[in-house]
């Protein structure tokens, strides 16, 4: 008897979990389905999943009406530059805070912790003022510079990790005449690969999908990032749902493919960045 009720519980559990999984996935399926219909088919009642023939022309109108290709390249360049420089400088600072002794180290580290508390929504007006004065509005630098050189969260996370590495490694290297930069890239970097990968994924997602700062700092279409271009597109094709869903698809489908391929690393990365509270 007990065995039977266990099976029943397990079936109900899976049923509920599958329903929730369906809710998570369905909007994207519906996006693809809508993007392959013509303007009339989307209003058919009851709604159909696919209406033949499939309408691939929607994707063509997305591609020809706005420079989505350029936006993709812009997003990619900005994100890669930010992530590269931010991990490089943050890991260097983290190494220094974790292992090197110098005057004022603790005070400066508290400064890092304090800046972690400052949200970008609070500093957006002074930044706008600063970038206007420096003539950086409507350039990608306005996004790259703060992203690349202001990453207290990364410094904090990596410092926690590097602190846990044994001191003996570094001492031995010093005795062998290894210089500090060499210790950084020969010993510290390889050993913190897992944490750096985790941050890389976390930060890549964040910067790739970032919307507020591009919205504030970019004005001309050729310089737009993908989320910004998509937002403009929404204004242009309002109520033309098949084309709008094709545009959303152009933005979302590559991300989903990367996610499916690298899901193990992405999920592990998120778990690591979240756990160290």
């Amino acid at each position, binding site marked *: 008897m007990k065995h039977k009720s266990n099976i029943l519980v397990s079936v109900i559990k*899976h049923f509920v*979990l599958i329903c929730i999984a369906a809710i998570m996935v369905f909007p994207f399926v519906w996006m693809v389905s809508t993007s392959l219909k013509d303007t009339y088919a989307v209003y058919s009642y009851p709604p159909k999943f696919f209406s033949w023939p499939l309408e691939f022309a929607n994707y063509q109108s997305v591609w020809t009406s706005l420079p989505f290709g350029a936006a993709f390249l812009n997003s990619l360049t900005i994100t890669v530059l930010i992530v590269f420089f931010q991990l490089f400088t943050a890991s260097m*600072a983290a190494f220094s805070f974790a292992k090197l002794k110098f005057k004022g180290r603790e005070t400066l580290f508290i400064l890092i912790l304090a800046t972690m508390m400052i949200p970008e929504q*609070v500093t957006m007006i002074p930044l706008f003022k600063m970038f206007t004065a420096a003539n950086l509005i409507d350039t990608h630098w306005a996004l790259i510079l703060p992203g690349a050189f202001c990453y207290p969260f990364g*410094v904090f996370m990596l410092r926690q990790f590097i602190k846990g590495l044994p001191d003996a490694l570094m001492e031995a290297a*010093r005795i062998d005449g290894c210089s500090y930069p060499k210790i950084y890239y020969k010993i510290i970097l390889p050993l913190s690969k897992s944490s750096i990968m985790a941050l890389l994924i976390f930060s890549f997602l964040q910067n790739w999908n970032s919307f507020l700062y591009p919205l504030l700092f970019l004005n001309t279409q050729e310089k737009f990032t993908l*989320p910004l271009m998509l937002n403009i597109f929404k204004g242009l094709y309002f109520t033309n749902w098949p084309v709008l869903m094709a545009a*959303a698809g152009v933005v979302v489908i590559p991300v989903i493919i990367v996610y499916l391929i690298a899901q193990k690393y*992405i999920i592990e990365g*998120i778990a690591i960045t979240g756990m160290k509270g």
Partner: protein
Amino acid sequence: MKGNKTESLYGYLFITPQIVGLTIFSIIPIISVFYLSFCQWDAVSDPIFVGVQNYIEEIKDPNFSKAALNTLLYSLIYIPGNIIIALLLAVAIKNIKGKTAYRLCYFLPAVTGSVAMSMIWLWILEPNAGIMNYFLSIFGIEKLNLLGNMATVIPTIGCIAVWYNVGYNVVIYIAGLEGIPGVYYEAAMIDGANPVTRFFKITLPMMSPTIFFTTIMTTIASFKVFDQVFVMTNGGPSKASYMYVLHIYDYGFKQFKMGQSSTAAVIFFVLLLILTIIQNIMSKRWVNYET
């Protein structure tokens, strides 16, 4: 002695890029926003110092209280919704067949980007041909305009935000659950504790540091809500979904009242700080840090 000198030299050298960046892009701006909050500034001419005038205007401003209340209401749905659902899902799929597949699905929305997912939901919830109304009609519910109705717009945006972000907390909670030693559960099972007791007596206390951390992160993220409302409703209908960051944006970058926008930003910053401090104090009462 010479070694120490090189060590501190490199110590300073290695932190320089981040410290300089932090100073320019975070510390100077936060000082500057406090100063600007006491100024009148239209983004073109020089800021004029006006004292506390902006603060008096801001407190009296109905848009300020509207934005604050809306954000609070949204948070009351989003924060508990996100934390509780994430915890239940994590507990449910922890030791189950197909865990990886479930986790893959639950985290999927989080990677897709706020603008794209907002557009998809706009279409699903579209009042005339949206598929949500078709699903509702199966249950005999009349056509709804969930995003166009003042009473339903915030709960709807809150639910969408839970759908979008719950995966982060699910992933973090699963990692946390995997860290609880199995012997605790084995011992409890021998003592005849049922699943509910085990959840409240083992899982919750053991998970309390993780839950505390995610609650702070989720709270801060909740108050910062912007992208979804900007794309889906732009604060409407008649400011029913006018959120706080939208208020800062609106005053600063639409009406060019940069001074008052800075005032709103400073109030926001101070509120977030107070909130974090309160949560920290409260955490001492229920967070169980392993000794």
